[in-house]
């Protein structure tokens, strides 16, 4: 035992253990090294709380405690709850209520809940929220988490659970006659979790499995904290890879000396730009051919943002790898940095991509990577004669995804000398294709395995670590594991594009007849997703009101900031924020009821989307029209639930004290996959017992997509979803899927699953017909795990399976189906936001968020509600508090989750979800998408609410206290106390 080690005795999950630990290792390090994989590393500095364990019964962040200080104490991890077979009631409640999504924070949440319920068996909702206030959840918005703890408390008290998990109601044909369940009026001002409300048209076809709140197929393993994520495995001989990230925003590497680092015993590889072939690529995980420019290489001789790649190391331990990083001598030639996109476009600005081998940059000298120009109709002609012309400029900031599982990757050679990449990715198939040329291996020699993902939100639609990790395995022959630190997540991964959004709108007789959008998209140091995010922004931002005359001009600009990338909302939320606020401003100027003005102008069923063909995603799109829309109903439901008009009236007479109430609303649309581009496939295979393997390349990053895909298959096959074994995804075993992005999984992957289910259903009927000696297989019906004939005879699916595999006309009942759609039907929604604004301080307190959304048919109301609730929480952060702030030299001033600020359970407003179902003819069972639309409306509704409260329009996000205060100061708002 070295002098740095010490033996400690402690109790873990009731078992006394003696452990030899390093003095400087945290309790988190030791627990994970000993195989307690439920204890998760989210930030390592105490900001996120997901590493919480019970320490003598108290919740404690294991990342901050030295393991030596645990001597003599009792530790409980999630592995210690429940028994081998049964879930603990808290775990059960989390599973049943959807109290988790990606599951990465779930161990911390459940253990904190246990500590609370051990002390306080009947806690109030506020006590629950306060107790959970130390653990960040990025997925759920905490609604179902709080609900889960309330239900667990009731279960532990032995009380029966009366409140429903979902509320369903028929949608009246006359929407004005809609009456909501009492709770949705929130007359008591509470923020108690409400079940999602599903409003169904009377003539909508009934389903058995689809539409039900099925427990997620991955629930048990996630609430048990089983080792399901990338970094939860340890391979023999595995090395630790670490990245040397640039401390400078813009510099040339004059020299780099890794000799001292290489001499360290236990260091197996140090790679710099001198060691790796210079192969140009783009890191965005998109379909072939990827949009240009290919402006990156694995390791370069120039750094273009703080956090840019400089070198990588593989060593026997994490500490040794970090020591080696410190010994790499890098001489930088400092270059001026530019962090403002408008400055970056000026003559004489520092040229960020001055390398000669990048092709496809529109204007290198002015850092303009793309210029997009498109128009329908004749915008200038309408402006020339318009009754009114309105202009507005809106600005959005750089938001970080802050998924709690950092980027993580393990690479190794398998027994057939094929490179295996186990990685937390949303796009395993794109990664396989993209990484191949970078590491000099053919695609066939690469296998990408996607385990469970601890959140992604678009940031894992990038190839971030895979190429570097693979290079280290190629260099060493050993398995290598890499994982970003939280700081690297901020500076070395991706973030949301900040945008400057300038609209000019012509209004004639209350109709928006022309719109001109000029957009500056700040893509940061590299162009990944720069083109496509702005194209989506332009398309959605000009299609929500769909004027026949529309022009989109956009400059996508490099700056010396961490690259912007894919992020839930994908340009659409920024541009819809701009248009919605401007439309609100126009209505005020014209003295119109803003709701009526919007209703008069928003896109209607049957209308062609004028820019659909011009603005595809990175290429020309396809003509599309609006086929279904429940927007009228969504708005009506929101108006009713919030008593919008009465509150607006009351807010005009609320006096002039410092606290002002406001309510705002917005409408929005999104898409369902990328038309004519996104393709997914699914495989179904029948087993001896009549169960099925469902193999999908789709990637469930916590969204519940594995579950809803199973529900779609189960509905067609008339089986319970426990008869489906879902596996996703592995490029060796699952069929191709473009991956989880663009709100495509339900619509595109679900379409593939439904097709596969229909095909395998035909195979089953055909074989059963043979068994039953019936000539018309199509006359057979699948029902309750059986194949039933008209004459009443029936076969169980197990009998059919056994026959087909072992007895008669032997063959494997199995099929694969692919799906692509040339339309991307938009879900639509209304958003309502209620606030209190302190006009003396600029502080905004958000009291309620309500979204009524038409996402077609809701496949699973709990997972869909979870998507909306979590999305609203993220969108609230975007609008209100989250902002990556850079100094003039390009250094990020707040690269930690604490200073960055993500809403916590104890401050989250009431969040309510109403689904207005429609039947989209091209979607599986009528479904559209739901994952991203929830991002689009919070910002404009918040700005509108602040205006309602104060009379002031604030056009730059987020609405931090100082920004609001300054706006109010400029408006010289008078108040007295």
């Amino acid at each position, binding site marked *: 035992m070295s002098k740095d080690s010490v033996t400690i005795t402690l109790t873990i999950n009731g078992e006394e253990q003696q452990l030899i630990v390093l003095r400087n290792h945290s309790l988190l390090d030791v627990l994970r090294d000993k195989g307690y994989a439920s204890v998760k590393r989210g930030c390592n500095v*105490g900001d996120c*709380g997901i590493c*919480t364990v019970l*320490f003598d019964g*108290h*919740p*404690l*962040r294991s990342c*901050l*405690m030295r393991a030596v200080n645990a001597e003599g104490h009792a530790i409980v991890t999630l592995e210690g709850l429940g028994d081998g077979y049964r879930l603990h009631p808290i775990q059960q409640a989390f599973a049943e209520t959807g109290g988790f999504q990606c599951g990465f924070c779930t161990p911390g949440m459940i253990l*904190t809940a246990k*500590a609370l319920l051990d002390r306080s068996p009947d806690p109030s909702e506020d006590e629950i929220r*306060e*107790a959970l*206030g*130390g*653990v960040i959840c990025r997925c759920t918005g905490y609604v179902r988490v709080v609900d889960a703890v309330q239900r667990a408390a009731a279960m532990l008290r032995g009380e029966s659970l009366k409140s429903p998990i979902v509320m369903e109601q028929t949608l009246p044909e006359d929407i004005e006659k809609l009456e909501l369940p009492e709770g949705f009026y929130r007359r008591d001002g509470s923020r108690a979790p409400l079940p999602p409300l599903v409003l169904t048209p009377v003539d909508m076809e009934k389903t058995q499995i689809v539409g039900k709140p099925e427990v997620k197929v991955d629930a048990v393993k996630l609430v048990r904290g089983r080792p399901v994520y990338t970094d939860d495995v340890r391979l023999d001989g595995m090395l630790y890879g670490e990245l040397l990230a640039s401390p400078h925003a813009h510099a040339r590497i004059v020299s780099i000396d890794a000799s001292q680092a290489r001499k360290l015993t236990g260091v197996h590889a140090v790679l710099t730009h001198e060691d790796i072939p210079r192969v140009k690529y783009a890191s965005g995980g998109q379909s072939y051919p990827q949009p240009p420019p290919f402006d990156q290489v694995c390791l370069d001789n120039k750094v273009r943002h703080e956090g840019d790649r400089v070198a990588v190391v593989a060593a026997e331990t994490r500490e040794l790898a970090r020591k080696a990083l410190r010994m790499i001598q890098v001489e930088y030639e400092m270059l001026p940095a530019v962090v403002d996109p408008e400055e970056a476009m000026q003559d004489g600005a520092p040229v960020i991509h001055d390398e000669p081998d990048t092709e496809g940059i529109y204007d290198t000298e002015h850092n303009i990577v793309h210029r997009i120009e498109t128009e329908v109709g004749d915008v200038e002609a309408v402006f020339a004669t318009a009754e009114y012309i309105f202009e507005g400029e809106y600005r959005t900031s750089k938001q970080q995804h802050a998924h709690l599982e950092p980027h993580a990757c393990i690479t190794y050679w398998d027994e057939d000398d094929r490179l295996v990449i186990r990685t937390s990715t949303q796009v395993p198939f794109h990664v396989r294709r993209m990484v191949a040329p970078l590491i000099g291996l053919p695609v066939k020699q690469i296998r990408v395995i996607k385990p469970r993902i601890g959140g992604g939100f678009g940031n894992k639609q990038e190839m971030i670590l895979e190429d570097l990790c693979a290079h280290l395995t190629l260099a060493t022959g050993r398995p290598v594991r890499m994982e970003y630190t939280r700081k690297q997540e901020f500076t070395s991964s991706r973030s949301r594009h900040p945008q400057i959004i300038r609209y000019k709108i012509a209004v004639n007789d209350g109709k928006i007849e022309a719109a001109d959008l000029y957009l500056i998209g700040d893509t940061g140091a590299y162009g990944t997703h720069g083109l496509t995010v702005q194209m989506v922004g332009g398309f959605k931002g000009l299609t929500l009101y769909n004027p026949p005359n529309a022009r989109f001009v956009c400059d996508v600009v490099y700056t010396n900031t961490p690259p912007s990338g894919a992020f839930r909302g994908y340009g659409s939320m920024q541009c819809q924020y701009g248009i919605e606020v401007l439309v609100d401003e126009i209505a005020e100027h014209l003295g119109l009821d803003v709701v009526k003005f919007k209703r008069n102008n928003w896109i209607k069923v049957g209308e062609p989307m004028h820019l659909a063909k011009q603005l595809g995603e990175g290429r020309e799109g396809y003509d599309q029209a609006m086929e279904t829309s429940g927007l009228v109903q969504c708005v009506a439901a929101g108006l009713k639930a919030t008593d919008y008009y009465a509150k607006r009236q009351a807010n005009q007479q609320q006096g002039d004290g410092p606290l002002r109430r406001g309510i705002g609303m917005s409408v929005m649309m999104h898409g369902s996959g990328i038309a004519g581009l996104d393709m997914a496939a699914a495989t179904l295979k029948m087993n001896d017992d009549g169960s099925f393997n469902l193999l999908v390349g789709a990637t469930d990053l916590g969204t519940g997509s594995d579950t809803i895909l199973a529900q779609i298959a189960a509905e067609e096959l008339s089986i319970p979803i426990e008869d489906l074994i879902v596996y996703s995804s592995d490029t060796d075993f699952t069929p191709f899927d473009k991956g989880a992005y663009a709100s495509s999984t339900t619509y595109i992957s679900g379409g593939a699953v439904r097709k596969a289910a229909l095909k395998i259903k035909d195979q089953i009927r055909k074989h059963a017909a043979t068994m039953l000696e019936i000539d018309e297989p199509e006359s057979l019906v699948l029902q309750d795990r059986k194949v039933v004939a008209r004459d009443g005879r029936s076969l169980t699916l197990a009998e059919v399976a056994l026959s087909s595999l072992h007895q008669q006309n032997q063959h494997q009942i199995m099929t694969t189906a692919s799906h692509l759609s040339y339309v991307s039907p938009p879900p639509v929604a209304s958003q309502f936001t209620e606030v209190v604004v*302190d006009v*003396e*301080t*600029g*502080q905004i*307190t958000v009291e309620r968020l309500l979204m009524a959304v038409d996402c077609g048919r809701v496949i699973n109301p709990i997972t869909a509600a979870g998507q909306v609730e979590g999305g609203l929480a993220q969108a609230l952060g975007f609008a*209100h*508090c989250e*902002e990556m*702030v850079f100094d003039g030299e390009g250094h990020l*001033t*707040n690269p930690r989750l604490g*200073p960055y*600020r993500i*809403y*916590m359970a*104890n*401050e989250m407003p009431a969040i309510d979800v109403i689904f207005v179902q429609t039947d989209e003819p091209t979607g599986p069972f009528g479904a559209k998408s739901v994952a991203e639309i929830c991002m689009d409306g919070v910002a404009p509704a918040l700005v509108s609410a602040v205006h309602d409260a104060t009379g002031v329009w604030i056009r730059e996000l987020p609405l*931090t*206290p*100082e920004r609001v*205060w*300054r706006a109010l100061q400029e408006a010289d708002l008078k108040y007295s*106390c």
Partner: protein
Amino acid sequence: MMSTRKKDTVEVHEVEMEGAKRSLILGAQATLQAVYECPDCPEPVRQALSGWVSWQERVEITVERAIRSPKQAPQWVAALLALGAKVTFLEDEIDESGLVDYLARVNSKRGKLGGVRLPLEVSERVWGEAHVGRTPADEPIVAAIAVVDLDSNVVRRARLGLTGVWREAARLAEAAQMLVGGPLTEERIQPVITALDGEVDPKGDFLGSDTYRRAMAGVVARRALEDCMKGVSER
């Protein structure tokens, strides 16, 4: 009042009689959670430990750590300052000193902390708190906590603790002394706020510029003192 009893315990808390008056002793190694749960904990202290200080943090941070590194829980330190907390020591040569003096010393000269002593029963005491932050549970950008002791409606002692407006994480404002000797009224609060503007020396950061912090110092200080006024009228 100086205690002469040497404290070498690390108990969670202890309510100690000093003549007719009671004090709460917070042991140096007591956790903030123990303080939070202590039934005798003064409300300003408890409130400063809820919301923006998580349960986990309260479990992990000891009284000593929070005092030695006030950035861990600045509002809590401000509350202690406003309540006139004293610190006790384990060494023989120093028994007790004011928390203000303790925080002013450099680390090496602070001595081994024994605990924090809070007077519990002060007649005619009112207090108030105000803050501004990005979100309700985010650590405030600027916060103020005021504690005013009166004698027949005349201010006998006034302490105003502020965070976010000096280099120090938390500090008492001298300006509050202007309230002593008269009633607590709006007219007498305004000069305090004016004087405070000359006293604070904020350093701007991504949460708020120095201009904003300076402006907010006045707002939250006034609100905290107005809270105290309400307390007087409700007594």
